[in-house]
Every structure is written in C-alpha cells, then in structure tokens.
C-alpha cells in the first residue's frame, strides 16, 4: 500500500511529476513532438506485426506446398480428378541385409 501512495500524489500534483509538457500542451509548435511520439511508439509494433504476418504467410504457403497434394480425394472428384493427382510411387529398393 505504501508503494502505491506516490501515484495519487503525482496525479494530484502533475507539475511535481515533471511530466513532458509537450504531450499535454496543445501548442502548435509541439505538433511535431506529438506526432513523432506516436510514430516512434507505433513503429516497433508495426514492424513486429509485419514480421509475424510475413512468417505466418510463408509458413502456410510452405505447408500447402508440402502437404497440399496429399489431401484425401473428394467424393465428387471422379476419375478426372484422380487422374490429375500425382500418384504415390511404390518402388522396391534392394540393399544389403541390416
């Protein structure tokens, strides 16, 4: 409880907190500071979000490339769809006895 005591004190006396005046004051000359603060705060989040989105899309594309052709054939597909699918080749391999 004692640790939380400074918070209401600072809220009651903002001047004593030495808070950044640029964020609070609506002066025209502080506009660049205001927008810069927003931009610099959002930029890392945007970059990380873009990176995750890119990885997610890449992962999905790769998964489709690997496993897409091994999905079970649909019931309505018929012979034409079966013929267009790549066949699983079963090849006998000979080798020395283990």
């Amino acid at each position: 409880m004692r640790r939380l005591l400074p918070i209401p004190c600072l809220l009651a006396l903002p001047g004593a907190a030495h808070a950044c005046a640029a964020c609070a004051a609506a002066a025209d000359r502080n506009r660049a500071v205001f927008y810069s603060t927003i931009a610099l705060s959002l930029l890392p989040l945007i970059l990380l979000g873009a990176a995750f989105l890119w990885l997610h899309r890449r992962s999905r594309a790769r998964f489709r490339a690997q496993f897409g052709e091994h999905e079970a054939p649909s019931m309505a597909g018929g012979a034409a769809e079966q013929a267009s699918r790549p066949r699983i080749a079963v090849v006998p391999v000979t080798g020395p006895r283990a």
Partner: protein
Amino acid sequence: MDTRSTERILSLPTRGGRLVENGVFGMAIAVFVEIMLFAGFISAFLIVRDSTPVGLWPPPDQPRLPFERTAINTASLLASGVVLFLANRAWSRRDIRAAQRLLGISILLGGFFVVAQGAEWVRLIAQGLTLTSSQLGAFFYTIVGAHGLHATVALSVLAADWRALRQGRLTSSAFGAAQLFWYFVVLMWPAIYLLVYR
C-alpha cells in the same frame, strides 16, 4: 549374397528445412534496429525544424539543399533496387548468367548513387554547409552520412555476393540477407529525401 526388399514412398514430402534462412533472419533483426535508428534521427530533425521560428528554416546564411539535382541520385538508387529484384528472380529460376549481369548493374547503379552523394557533399561543404555550421548541417550530415555509410556497406556485401555467384558458391542465405539490407537502404532513402531535402 542375401538381399531384402523394402518399399520406399517417393512422393512424400521431405521433413526439415528452415522457414527463414539464418542469414535472412539475422539481417531482419539488424534492419529492424536500423529502421528505429533512422526513425529517431528523422524524428529529432522534424522536431528541431518545426520548433524553429517561421522564416528561419533553413538558416538564411546556409546553402539550400539541392532537391532537384538529388532526384537523379534517387532515381538511380530506386532503379538499383528494381534491378536487384530482377536479379533475384533470375537466380530463382537458375539463370546464373542473367542473375550475375543484373546484380552487376544493380551494384553499378548503387555505386553511382554513393559517388554522386559524395560529390554533392563536396559542393555543399565548399558552399559553407558543414557539420558545425548550423543545426541543418549537423542533421544533414548525420542522417545522410549514416545512410551513405549503410549504402557503402551494403554495396560491399552485394559485391561479395556477385563474386560468390561468379565462383558458383553463392548461398540463398547470403543472397537473401544482402537483398534485405539493400532493400532497406533503397526504401529508407525516399523518406530521407522527402523529409530532409525539402
């Protein structure tokens, strides 16, 4: 000699392989840091410029930045990025000769940008714009200098890749990392050009 038969399913997908190559991932982290660095530079520049009284920016006794002349350098750098993209496409379809030629052209265009920027600096210094002459000079040489340094390093990396491609030992990780770095240099420049030069 006894043999035994086993069956092997040829068309099953192979397991393993990375989603992103190590080089590309490492470069992506570096580029993330560099973007934040340049964002900080540009932000500081805009704050100082906008807090200057009306009519005093750029400083009256300082030369104006050559916006029109630098457009040629900008076009050269952007073209370099496009040509590098084409080089990557050629490399993806295993057309090594075309990839080597396009990568060389991309390096030359990037080299022209760096040399032209250097010539511009010499002209501006001769006109009195130096690192200590004004806030404009300090910001200009810091921001554009940092970008020029990145461009030079990226060109060295691309040149090393060009050599590796010629010797047939270029890896997709190395090429991907170099491309990422160069695209960062190319795409960062229009922001600097439009915000600092104007």
